[in-house]
């Protein structure tokens, strides 16, 4: 689908089982009927089950990334840089 604001294509991402459309141009987010309620419910369950998480450490705001960047825009660094991934990327850093 097309973004109602800037007309760029929108991509679907899954957040905790909720399908979210995000615009590849302006990064705006579109929620279907009931999705906001689903997210609110998930949030409520989370805050009942555990004390609120500490704010994520962020030394500086994430730098801008292009619209075609990774869904996390390169901002995500939450443990998915495993050893294998790191080794392969280490090789890529030194290749033409």
């Amino acid at each position, binding site marked *: 689908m097309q973004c109602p604001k800037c007309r*760029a*294509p929108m*991509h679907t991402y899954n957040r905790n089982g909720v399908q979210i459309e995000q615009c590849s141009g302006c990064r705006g987010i579109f929620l279907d009927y009931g999705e906001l309620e689903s997210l609110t419910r998930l949030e409520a369950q989370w805050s009942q089950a555990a004390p609120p998480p500490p704010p994520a450490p962020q030394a500086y705001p994430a730098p801008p990334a*292009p619209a*075609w*960047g990774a869904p996390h825009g390169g901002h995500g660094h939450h443990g998915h840089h495993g050893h294998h991934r790191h080794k392969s990327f280490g090789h890529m850093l030194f290749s033409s």
Partner: protein
Amino acid sequence: MNSAPGPLLAGLTARARAAAHARAPACPCGAATLADRPDGTVVRHADTVAKAHPLDATPAELTSRLTLAARHPGILLPPLDPTPVDLHGRLVTFWPYGTPVDPDAPDAAPWEAAAVLLARLHRSPAPKDLPVMRGPAKAARAVARLRAAGPHPAVASVLRAWASLPPWARAEAPMPHTGTLCHGDLHLGQLVRHPSDDGPWLLIDVDDLGVGVPAWDLARPAAWYACGLLPPGAWTRFLTAYREAGGPAVPAEGDPWPALDVPARALTAQTAARAVAKAVAAGRPLDEVEQSVVDACDRMATVPPQLVQEHAK
């Protein structure tokens, strides 16, 4: 991959030894082959390195690139002699040995030093006789090899991303801007400390050096960041150091992506093309890092470069 034919490697090793012994007659003879690839065979003998350049290197172009390196010893490692010699039909040059970035410690990569060297290079006046930077030509060659590699589900993704690029980025038209000195193939293997171990960092490898679009030199780290591979902290350090050193490839403030977008797309496609061709040749699946670069190619096809530039603030 084809390695150098026996006589070339043997001859190159002998030349490196002779050049090293001419510099230091009491030589401890620490000899090693540093690289043996079609695009360059490099051997070390003690403090001297001999490089056989790619087959398509021409004496005139290589000499003007070597002369430039000799003129900017604070930016580029200067050759021992700015004139290449012929060995078994290959052009050979001699260099002092410098300590490379430790491949096992990429987290210790000298991002600031790399950025400052690039900013200085981009701000240096470009001599009239210098050929064009070969970045787009190398990307085009990687894509040509991908087309010849054989069937793979990722080939179509990479070719679609490649097709969305403007002709200059595919080496099918002149570059829009050829007034700036560029390295043309920046990655972490292109930095050495000289004198070795504790000297300042310098850029090496003049084969792709020339005039062109300077954002190309920033585009590999930019592409790694965009693909979610390079942590934002490392990218910020690199970009900030480049801007603080007065580098002209991106505006001093604000969103750098209108300038970086096309080269970063091209280098993402080049990296994906090489990764897929290698995976096909080895008969193995793409690993997670390689897949993330192919995924970026998929997303590119849905966002034309012009659109991204219009959205820039």
